[in-house]
């Protein structure tokens, strides 16, 4: 049981919840190891916040089970639903939810106060928590008298001051401006490494999810779409939805034209016909090989595509598209090109010094390793 509590410190099983006629959660299950950080990533409305709020006890699911540290806190079948205050958690809200009628120290000390901590212990731990988040000396300030970034830190200190077994983050950085967001992200990572708390982190920002977590759970339409470690998720998304969400911006439908032998790494080369006189060689990493003629989806990132001037149409070859530049948007570091190739429109991100302009005839090439292929229903 103890070991079970460590490996599956938080266990969510077939959670369902509807709001009126809309099903927000359609059977969500996952585990969180003790000391790890798991991100719930997905577009708005995918149900990730509902999952988090259900774990916190702020939302009552319709059915399913939730256990924290091996102890059930919600069980639909047994009508068990622990109120939030008994779940021993800390939580950081998107709006920070810093209480405007209290000072910084009163805000941070609240979880200790309701747990009836002694005054000396309370003061000591508040001071320590404020130091941890870099707000030492600001304890007596009124909480409203702080910048957004500082309020964020107050919310963070309040969530960890009572050393909860689990800290929940509900899009904590989304209200900060871009620079502050990056800075807070790094600090959060350091703090987490230092204190080693278990964390569940809800975000719609893929960078945040990749940067902070040991495991990413991608959600879509109330269901878990993929569970993977950040690197695997980024390089080898499991589904076309995940690929799209993680920045694979060239996604095309095609059919399998040929299947090659598997290499030493277990990947088979698959030849996909896109129907515009171009075919792509892609690496197939799934166990069961595809059938020739099967419908598939291929995806690659615009940063991984190479653009070259091609005044005369080159000889048709694998992984090379020919076309003309439709639009070029200068972004400083790079140029965002839209390339028209038959009925397909490709996006290519080229270095900022690339001289090509709209109307130029070009070729776009991409390597087989950068092309991901998914079966299409």
């Amino acid at each position, binding site marked *: 049981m103890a070991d079970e509590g460590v490996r599956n410190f938080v266990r969510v099983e*077939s959670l*369902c919840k509807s709001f009126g006629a809309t*099903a927000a959660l*359609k*059977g969500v299950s996952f585990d969180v190891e003790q000391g790890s950080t798991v991100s719930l990533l997905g577009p708005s409305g995918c149900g990730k916040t509902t999952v988090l709020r259900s774990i*916190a*006890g*702020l939302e009552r699911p*319709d*059915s*399913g089970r939730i256990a924290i540290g091996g102890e059930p806190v919600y069980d*639909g079948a047994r*009508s068990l639903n622990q*109120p*939030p*205050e008994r779940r*021993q*958690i*800390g*939580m950081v*809200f*998107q*709006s*920070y*939810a810093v*209480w*405007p*009628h209290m000072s910084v120290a009163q805000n941070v000390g*609240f*979880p200790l*106060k*309701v*747990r009836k901590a002694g005054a000396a212990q309370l003061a000591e731990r508040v001071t320590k928590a404020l130091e941890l988040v870099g707000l030492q000396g600001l304890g007596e300030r009124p909480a409203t008298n702080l910048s957004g970034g500082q309020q964020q830190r107050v*919310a963070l200190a*309040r*969530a960890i001051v*009572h050393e909860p077994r689990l800290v*929940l983050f509900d899009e904590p950085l989304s209200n900060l401006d871009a620079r502050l967001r990056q800075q807070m992200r790094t600090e959060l990572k350091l703090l987490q490494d230092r204190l080693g708390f278990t964390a569940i982190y809800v975000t719609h920002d893929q960078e945040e999810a990749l940067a902070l977590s040991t495991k990413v759970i991608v959600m879509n339409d109330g*269901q878990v779409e993929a569970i993977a470690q950040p690197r695997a998720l980024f390089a080898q998304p499991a589904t076309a939805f995940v690929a799209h969400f993680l920045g694979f911006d060239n996604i095309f439908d095609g059919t399998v034209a040929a299947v090659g032998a598997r290499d030493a790494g277990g990947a088979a080369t698959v030849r996909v016909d896109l129907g515009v006189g171009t075919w792509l060689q892609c690496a197939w990493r799934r166990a069961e090989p595809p059938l020739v003629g099967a419908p598939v989806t291929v995806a690659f990132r615009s940063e991984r595509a190479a653009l070259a001037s091609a005044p005369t149409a080159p000889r048709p070859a694998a992984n090379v598209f020919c076309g003309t530049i439709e639009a070029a948007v200068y972004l400083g570091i790079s140029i965002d090109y839209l390339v028209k190739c038959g009925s397909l429109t490709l996006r290519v991100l080229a270095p900022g010094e690339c001289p090509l302009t709209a109307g130029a005839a070009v070729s776009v090439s991409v390597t087989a390793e950068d092309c991901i292929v998914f079966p299409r229903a």
Partner: protein
Amino acid sequence: MTHAPLPSSAARCAARLRALRSPQGFLPAMAVAIGVVLILSPFLATVVRSLLTGEEGKLGFGLGNFIGMFGNKRFWEAAAMTALMGAGATALSCLFGLGLAWIVARTDLPGRAGFDTLNLIPFFLSPFVGAISWTYLAAPNVGLLNQVIAAAGGPADLLNIYSVGGVIWVLALFYTPYVYLFVISPMRRMDPALEDAARAHGAGFWLTLRYVTAPLMMPALMSGALVVFVTSAGLFDVPLALASPHGIKTIPTAVFQVVQYPSDYGLAAAIGVMVMTVTVVITLMQRSYLSKRSFATVTGKGYRPRIVQLGRWKIAALGLEILYVGGGVVLPMAALVMVALSPLWTGKPDPSTFTLGNFEFVLFSHDLARRAMVNSLIVASIGATLGVVIGTLQSYYLQRGRSRLRTVMDAFLSLPIGIPGIILGLGFLVIALRTPLYSTLWIILIAYIARFLPFSTRGISAMLVSLSTDLEESARAGGATWLQTMRMVVLPLIRPAIVAAWLMLFVIFVRELGATILLYAQGTETISVAMVIMGEMSFGYVAALAVIQALLLVLAFGLFRLTRSAFLEA
């Protein structure tokens, strides 16, 4: 896609019952239940009583009361008079309210902030006292203003406050702040870009006003106008003071008369049922009108409205302010104080004879007056306290509860706002006649809370709805129980609304007359009742009592302004 089966209705029921066992479920639901009982019991009592005909003691069911009422010409005359007075007061209040709000919110008239406060003072004063004061000012021949007119060579009976026009004038003075409060906040918070866009696309000042500003103000104005119509038409005290002496009857004064000996409770109850039906229909119509137009003018962003340079029109704006503040506050208060200070009011103030004798008499010598003051203070302070406790819990239920009944309850609990006090008083009288509550302060207290609880609930709801639920949830997530969260987070944050609601109820209860007039007995008189009774004795005593009441109200008003500004700064 693993869809879990929906819980059965039995399971849902069980879950709901379990939820009621926790304080979070129980207390708000309890407060709503109290509110429902407070509305339903006088309503049902009135309906039942209206269907009982015949002599006391051998009553039988029948429609005799309604037949008698509809066949009575005097009833229809009173109804027409009530509608006329309500409509006149509404029209005049809208003119005043719109004009004053526009001047304060959108023009560069100097001293606007001061006028903002002055415009609201009549809201806190008693319309009954206002009516009494205006009899000193504008009674034919003897009124102070008529004397001034006569001295200037005009006819001494030019102004006659004892008339339909007089009632409309006094009602309008005291109901203007309702319209003012309804329209000033959209005027202040309207995105000026909406008007700028009209100007930029070729509309001049008047066209912009007609096609953009006025339609945007319409929902707020209509809400204010409806509240004024329903409440002013149902008001008992002003027609009592100004119309009854000359035999002009309105529905509220007719009900009062019918209940006097020899009482015809059946007829009174039939009138009550009519009035309640009409009021509820009007209220529901207003709700459906408003639900169809919710404009996003009020975005909550702190817009700075465009300020209109008045130029030469400053004089006109100032004139309107002086007319309103003079008629609503300065003249009646001055007349009241002079009458209170005069040993014998002869229609002419004589400062050399001014004395505090009247005050001394009502404060220290007159049993009725002293008892009335103590009763009013007891009822007002206990009532206001109960009112905010129940109101806070009700608004928690309405804003935070998960019950499906919330929207229905929101509409239902607001119903008493339109019901005239004397009609609700009648309902409670019918109940009290058969219980030990009869002729106690308790029945008065209960009637007050039933009638005015919606003010408390609505005021507190307005603040609670703007309070992010995150602030509560983060307390729960941080380990606080619901009661701890209420005590340490919610209540401190909505304290300004709670204080404002308490003061509001206190003010209303101190001056209330319509509901009290049918429920008081020897020993349970309130200040306003004492003024009615003593009106037959001496002008001076009534005026002194009225000044004391006004001082109480102004004190509460001052505190209200203080808390409100403290809240705005926070």
